[in-house]
Structures are given as structure tokens and as C-alpha cells.
């Protein structure tokens, strides 16, 4: 009887499962640190182009894992899996919303952040929200200590009235608009305007931090990019000296080398990196340049990255993370083959996207600072001389200069700014290969549990090196003798042949001379 009941129950479950439409996503709850980001369009060719990518990087800097989807790709039941959902409506076109999404949204109970047009009625009522659309005009944006004047906007929504905590402000230069930049109450938040490249990009970080309930203080790092084995290594060392003297901790994102790692040129590169490390510089492995997405026979990225990390570690250099374009964290191949050694990254804006195995879900890292060039901050006014910390972890980047004058100028700019830079190695970072484990704890570096000697003397690298590694040949002497004998034999044969030829020719000639004489 009991057995029959079990079979019936089992069959019932099977029927129920079978009855669920195939496009229905099985509701497995995700971690609270997992955000679903849905958007209607990338707004390519408009001022909003790039805002989705900036948002993805910002979410990563708050240590969030992100699943990204368009309304078109939305599958029924997706919303129910997440406790945090962000919707970006870049297009002023309501028809792009999926019916499944609208249905699911009615039952959605998690946190919700809406950006842009078409605020759902539920959000409007909860926030008592009223919005209007601007004309083509110039506005002033403000958030925290930051202010940006004369931002040209056209046809963007702004908040006329809303309950809850207000963030920053948008005000028109004509004086007819005085609106908060964003608003949040309980589980709902709304940001009407979000673009990449102006203060709205930073302002979003303030709203996001509270909405995501992140409490940790953001850190600010200085990151120097574009350091190659063929950069002016003396200049790199000089830069490290200047930053060290100014008390500025910094990070260098160094280009990896996958071959000829035993060459003196590589040793000089390593020696420079070691010197940088001794000058309070932290080392990050920059992602290699991906030239092609074709699967080719040859070295695997995984082996190449492991090789370079091991070369650094074996030389007493402790790489603490990886610097890569953001799209790497949304690609299964790059995550598994290139990023898996690191628990910390700094994600750069995408420059040349070359996906190999694109996925909707990002890889989450324990630290993933939001990178922006130093020049980005400099376009904004700030109220105090001292630049306050930004809400998220930030890496202010600049590309390593080619000339000493340019570098000195940059160093001076850095020293003149009242920015507090944090030491990257104060936090916990871990890089692990089969043979090496690199750690940073409270400012100390460890390679395989041994503390790294930061004051290791600088070594001069000798240029003499056996590049061709001539292999020892067996019986070389014997073959050498054999060669000489053969050469001698050939010469002798040629001589004999030549002699016979001359003799034959003379005999032949004599025969005719005789014949003529006889005639």
C-alpha cells in the first residue's frame, strides 16, 4: 500500500514537471550577491551607449555576480530566482517588454532597481514617483562632493516627486529643474538618467551601494598600465622611485610573456618588476592581447598564464591579481583558462571584444576594482580639496609614459592631487598555480607560505647567453673526419676526371690533326 502511494506520488511529480513549459526556467534560488540585469537595448549610436557595460563593471566592483539578459531573451520564471533585479530601459519604446517578464514582475518580491524610461506602476506607487521628460538642454549633475556643469541632455526622464532617500541632483541651467539624481526606498530604487563618461556614471555607484546593501568602505588604488618587457625599464624604475618617495602605493599591470622566459631580456624585465615590488608597488598580471578567436593548435592560454605566474613567483615576484577587459569575466573560456588562477581582478572597459565562449553570467571575484582613468575624475569639480573615497573600489589608471618628461609631469599631477591611495596588498589576494601559491595578507606578501624579501638586491643581468643551446652531437669527431675524407675523395675524383678529359680532348684533336696531315 505504502509502496503504491510512493509510486503514485512519484508519477504525479513527473507529470507536474512534464507539464511545465520547456522555456520555463527551473526556479533555483541564487545567492543574494547575484544580480539579474535586464535591458531593452544597448542604445548604440546614442549618448547612452556603453552604460550597460559600465553598470556591469560597477556591479563587479561591489563583488556581485551578474546574469545579463535582454527582454527578448527573457525566459519565464527567471525573476523568481533572483533577490536583486536591475532593469535598464534605454529606449523610449514600451513595446520591447516581454509578456513573460511583465507577468513574472507582478509576483516578484525581491529588490528592484529601475533605470531610465517606463517605470513600472508598482515602483511608481511604492515610491510615490512622478517623472517628466526634459527638452534638449544643459544640466548640472551633482553627487557627494562632486559636481559637473553643462552636461547636455536631450529627452531624458527626471524625478519631479518621490518618497524615500534622495541621491545627488540634476538641475537645469535655466533653473526650471531641481530633481534628485536617484531615489531609493526599501526594496525599490529608481535612477532616471545614466550614461557612461559623465558624473552620472559615478552617481550610480552611490545609489547602487545602498541598494545592494554594501557596507564596506570603497578603496582607491593607483594603477599603471601598459608596462611591457620592452618598455623603458629604467624609466619604470624611476617612476617607482618617485611614487615611493611620495608615499603613494601603486599597482602595475604587467604584460605577460609566454616564451623565451629564460632570455636575459626577460631577466631584466623581472628584475625591474622586483624593484617595483620593493618600492611598494603591487604586481598585477595583465591579460594577454587576444589576436584571434580561432581555435588553433598550440599552447593553451591556461598553460601560458600558469607559466608566467610561475616565472614571476620563482623570481620572488608576487602577482596579486589580474587586469583584463571586462568581457573576459563573461566568457567561459577566458574565465576557466586565464582568470581561474586569481581571486582578485581589475576589470578595464572593453576595447576590443573577442569572445570565445560567451556566457550570460559573470565570474565573481573577491575583489574587482572599478577602473577609470585619472583624467575621468579631473573633468568634475569637487567641493573639498581632499578627495573623498568613492563608494566602490576604484582603480585610477594611467598608461605608462614613453618619455621622462611626460612621466615627471604625470607624477607631479598625482602628488598635487589630494587623493588617498590605498595599498593593494593590505587586502587579501590569492593567486594559485599547481606549483606556487601567492598570498597577500595585511600588507605582507607570501610565496608558498614564505614571506617575500622586499629588499632583495638589484642584480645586473649579463647579456651573454647561450641562445641556440647547441646540442651535443654523438660521434661528431668521427663524422667530421668522414666529411674531410669525402671532400678529399671528391676533389681527387674531379682532378682525375679533369685530367682524363684533357687527355681525351688532346687525343681527339691529334686524331684530326693526323687525318688532316694524311690528307
Amino acid at each position: 500500500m505504502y509502496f503504491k502511494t510512493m509510486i503514485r506520488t512519484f508519477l504525479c511529480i513527473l507529470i507536474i514537471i512534464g507539464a511545465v513549459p520547456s522555456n520555463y526556467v527551473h526556479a533555483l534560488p541564487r545567492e543574494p550577491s547575484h544580480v539579474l540585469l535586464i535591458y531593452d537595448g544597448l542604445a548604440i549610436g546614442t549618448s547612452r551607449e556603453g552604460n550597460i557595460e559600465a553598470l556591469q563593471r560597477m556591479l563587479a566592483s561591489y563583488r556581485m555576480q551578474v546574469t545579463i539578459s535582454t527582454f527578448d531573451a527573457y525566459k519565464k520564471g527567471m525573476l523568481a530566482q533572483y533577490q536583486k533585479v536591475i532593469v535598464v530601459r534605454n529606449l523610449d519604446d514600451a513595446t520591447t517588454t516581454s509578456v513573460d517578464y511583465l507577468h513574472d514582475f507582478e509576483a516578484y518580491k525581491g529588490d528592484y532597481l529601475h533605470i531610465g524610461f517606463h517605470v513600472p506602476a508598482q515602483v511608481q506607487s511604492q515610491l510615490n514617483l512622478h517623472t517628466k521628460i526634459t527638452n534638449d538642454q544643459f544640466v548640472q549633475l551633482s553627487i557627494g562632493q562632486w559636481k559637473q556643469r553643462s552636461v547636455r541632455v536631450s529627452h531624458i526622464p527626471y524625478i519631479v516627486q518621490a518618497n524615500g532617500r534622495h541621491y545627488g541632483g540634476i538641475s537645469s541651467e535655466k533653473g526650471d529643474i531641481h530633481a534628485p539624481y536617484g531615489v531609493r526606498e526599501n526594496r525599490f530604487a529608481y535612477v532616471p538618467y545614466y550614461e557612461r563618461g559623465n558624473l552620472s556614471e559615478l552617481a550610480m555607484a552611490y545609489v547602487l551601494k545602498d541598494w545592494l546593501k554594501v557596507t564596506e568602505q570603497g578603496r582607491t588604488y593607483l594603477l599603471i598600465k601598459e608596462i611591457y618587457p620592452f618598455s623603458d625599464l629604467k624609466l619604470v624604475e624611476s617612476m617607482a622611485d618617485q611614487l615611493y618617495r611620495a608615499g603613494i602605493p601603486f599597482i602595475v599591470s604587467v604584460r605577460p610573456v609566454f616564451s623565451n622566459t629564460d632570455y636575459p631580456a626577460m631577466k631584466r624585465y623581472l628584475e625591474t618588476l622586483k624593484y617595483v615590488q620593493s618600492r611598494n608597488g603591487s604586481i598585477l598580471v595583465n591579460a594577454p592581447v587576444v589576436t584571434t578567436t580561432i581555435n588553433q593548435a598550440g599552447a593553451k592560454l591556461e598553460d601560458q598564464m600558469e607559466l608566467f605566474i610561475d616565472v614571476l613567483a620563482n623570481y620572488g615576484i608576487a602577482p596579486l591579481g589580474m587586469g583584463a577587459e571586462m568581457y573576459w569575466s563573461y566568457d567561459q573560456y577566458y574565465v576557466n583558462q586565464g582568470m581561474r588562477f586569481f581571486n582578485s581582478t581589475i576589470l578595464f572597459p572593453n576595447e576590443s571584444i573577442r569572445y570565445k565562449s560567451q556566457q550570460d553570467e559573470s565570474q565573481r571575484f573577491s575583489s574587482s576594482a572599478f577602473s577609470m582613468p585619472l583624467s575621468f575624475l579631473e573633468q568634475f569639480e569637487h567641493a573639498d580639496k581632499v578627495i573623498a573615497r568613492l563608494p566602490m573600489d576604484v582603480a585610477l589608471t594611467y598608461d605608462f609614459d614613453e618619455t621622462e618628461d611626460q612621466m615627471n609631469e604625470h607624477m607631479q599631477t598625482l602628488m598635487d592631487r589630494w587623493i588617498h591611495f590605498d595599498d593593494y596588498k593590505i587586502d587579501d589576494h590569492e593567486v594559485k598555480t599547481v606549483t606556487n601559491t601567492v598570498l597577500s595578507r595585511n600588507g605582507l606578501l607570501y610565496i608558498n607560505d614564505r614571506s617575500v624579501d622586499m629588499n632583495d638586491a638589484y642584480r645586473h643581468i649579463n647579456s651573454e647567453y647561450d641562445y641556440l643551446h647547441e646540442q651535443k652531437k654523438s660521434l661528431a669527431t668521427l663524422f667530421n673526419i668522414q666529411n674531410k675524407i669525402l671532400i678529399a675523395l671528391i676533389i681527387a675524383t674531379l682532378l682525375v676526371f679533369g685530367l682524363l678529359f684533357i687527355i681525351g680532348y688532346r687525343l681527339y684533336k691529334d686524331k684530326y690533326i693526323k687525318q688532316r696531315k694524311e690528307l
Partner: protein
Amino acid sequence: MIRNHLQKINRLGILRRLTNISPAFFAAFMVLLITSIALFTPPYIGMADNGDYFRILYGNGVYFNVPDYTSQYFGYFIPKYGIFQYFNENNTVVVSSQSIFIQAAVWLNKLFIDALVFDVRVQAAIYTCLYTIAVYLLVESITWKTPRKYGYPIAILAIFLFGDTAYTAYFNSFYGESVAFIMMIFLLASGLLLYRNRYNDYVMLTVFTLSGILLTTSKQQNAPVGVIVAFIGIMLIFIRKGKTFRILTASSLACLLLAGVGTYAFIPKEFVNINKYHAMTRGILMESKDPEAALKPFGIDPQYAILDKSVYFESNTTVDLDSEILEKSFYSHYGFGSIVKYYITNPGQAGQMLDLAAKSAFIIRPPAMGSYEKDVGKPWGAQTNFFSEYSELKKHLTPRTFGFIVIWISLVMGLYLPSFISALRSRNMRKAARFPLIVMLILIGLSGIVVSFIGAGDADLAKHVFLFTAAFDLVTFLLVADAIRRRLIQGDQD
């Protein structure tokens, strides 16, 4: 009954006509037959793309329409491509005579087959027709007025060599080698026909000039060919006394010279970077005992020694190989001239590179590219062995050293020199033309080797030294054929 039947046939003169088939016709017909079987009957034989097709295809209004096209690189031959139906925004990346044949094929394809999908076999059909004519002319230039007992063995030799699918598979591809090979045969055949005074001189001069121009402009690395043909071709001016002929010949040679210079001038920048990169990393640095010291004469930072032996096409690299940093500190420091100077001052290294090039100089079919379509079910990169006996024998039997090439050149020159001297003594310039033609072909072949390693190191040598492998085969064929017909030492008397 059978006897009656045979008598009937005999009466019609069919048997007589069959036995009257000239060796040239026989060779050309058999080459046509074998090539048609290889290229136009399943499984179709062709060549996989090594990534070069893009440069020539898109500019000619043809695009990759297979969704997983790039995953079939090197592995499989793809016969069908899309034809642009809208404005083609792709500039012509490569200026090549190959475009003429692609355009003609696309036009025919649109007219008779499909306006949307281009079948590369249409192009192969054009090449096959030209190839058959070229083979006919070449065999005719040798076997004309030659007894049948010598003519047919020569024809069989020609079938064995020119029917080889290592050569003909190129027709079902977008590599410039197909044009280069056909035009080389035309060039030699027209030169020999002038030497033998077989057809109208003006017609043959036109064929000689046109084939020379098309050969020179078929690939960027063939730029020296124009110069070589123009200079060696000077002897053609003297084979006939008429003023018109001499002016026409001189003008033709000037055109050839211009074609050579023009081809060099039109080499696109992207192309330059790939080859320049390899010329340094797979050439100078690779064979140098001290890459850092090798960089010094060029004024390049010794740190660039790290790039030693690296390849432009690697998936993951330290630096963007078209970046400003390389442009400023690496590429701008050297060129063709400075590399030549380096090899002159380092003859040992030049010798090593020549030896390296010689290793690939006897391989007709590049080992990297597959011959079959994916649907055939052959493994990735599988190559055909249909009618490939000559190329296989050549690959396995020839000593692949530069020393052998020197011996071969000495032997060829030594054997043909007496007839040349004798023709010069008798002031018969037409009869003297054979030797310079052979020297021209040898120089074209050598230019292929030298330009390859100076221009791109050891990268893709099997394909880059194609000119040499083709020149070697043509000269060797001529040598053996002349030996068969007893015209090696004394030359033709007609």
C-alpha cells in the same frame, strides 16, 4: 565480324587520326582529364583557407557565408561563398592579378549558376582551361618536330608532373599560387616557342608579356619577377631584326619592369607588418647566436629579443602586434634594404636561412592545409593522395639542402651552356634564347626563396617558396625532355 568492324573504322580514318594525335595534345588532354576528375567530381579536391582568403575575397565582392567558417581554417576546403548583394564597403586589400580571374569567375557564376552563392569551382574551371592551354604550348614547344618515339615519353612525363593534384588543387582555392603557376608555364612556353620559331612571333611576344605581368602581379612577393623577366628578356629584342618587333619587345619589357616596381609599391601596410614581423622574429632573430646583438644594427632596443621565434598569428600575445609601441620602436627601424644588408654582413646566418628555406623548397603541397570538404568525413586537415605521385616522390627523394640547389643549378647551367655558346658564336640569337630563359626561371625560383626569408623569415615557407618549387619542376622537366630528345647539349637545329 570484328575484322569488318575494324576495317570500317580504318576506312573512316579514325585509327589513323588517333595515332596522329600530337604529344602536346595528348599531354594537355590527359592533364585536363585528370584535373577535371580531381576538381569537379566528388570528393572535390581543393585547399583549406589559412586565413589569407579574406584579403583577396572581400575586396572582390565575395564573403564567407558558412557560419563556422573560421573554425574550418586549415582543416577543410570550402567550395561555396556568398556574393555581396549590397554596396561592398571593403576596400581592395591586395592588388593582385588574381582579382581578374575571381571577377571573371563571379561574373560567369552570376550569369550561369547563381547570383547569390559563388562556387569556387567556376574559378577552377577557368584556371583548368588556361592550364590545359599552357601545358599544350609547353609540350608543343619541346616536342615540335621531334620524333614520336621521343615526343610521347615527354608527354607522359608532362602528365605525371602537371597532372599532379598538389599543383591543380590550388585552382580550387583563392591562393595566388594558382595564377603564378599557370603564368610561369605560359612564360616558359612562349619563350621556348619564340626560341623554336614555332608560332607567330608577335603572338608569342604578347603571351610572354601578358603572362609575365600576370605572374608578377599575382602576389606581392613576386615583385622581383617583373624585374628579372624584364632584364633577361632583353635577349628577345635580338631574335628578330625588324624594327617594329624590337620596339614592341622593348616596350613589353618596360611594362614588365613597371609591373614589378608597381607590385612592390602597392604592398598594403597590414601585409607589411605581418611579413616584417616574421622577417625579424622568424628570420634574423631566430638564427642569430645573439638576438640582442642582432637587433643593434637596426637600432632596436635589445629587449625585443624576447620576441625571438614568435609568430604573428599566435592567439595570445604580450603586445598588440599592430600597436603604436611596435610601430614606433620596432617596425619603423627596419625594411627590406636593411635586412638584405644584415644578411650580406652575416653570410653565415644567410646560409642557415637558405638551408632552412631549402627544406621546404621541394614540397609542392603545403602540409598545413586540408584538401577535402568537411562533409566528406575525412579527419581535420586530411590531404588527398589522388594523382600525387610526383609531388610525393619529390618530397621524399630530393635532398632538401641549399647545397643540392647549387649543384642542381650548376648541372643545369653546365648542360645548357655549350649550346648557348655555340649559338652566340654562330650569331644566331634566336637559338641562343633557350639558355637565358632557363636562367630567368632559375632566378625567379631563387627570388622566391630569397624574398621569402628576407621578407617573412621561415614563416609559411612551404607556401612562400612556391616559385622555386615550380621553377625547379619546369626546368627539370625541360632538362629531362631535352635529354630524351637529344637536344640538351647541341640545341635545336631547326
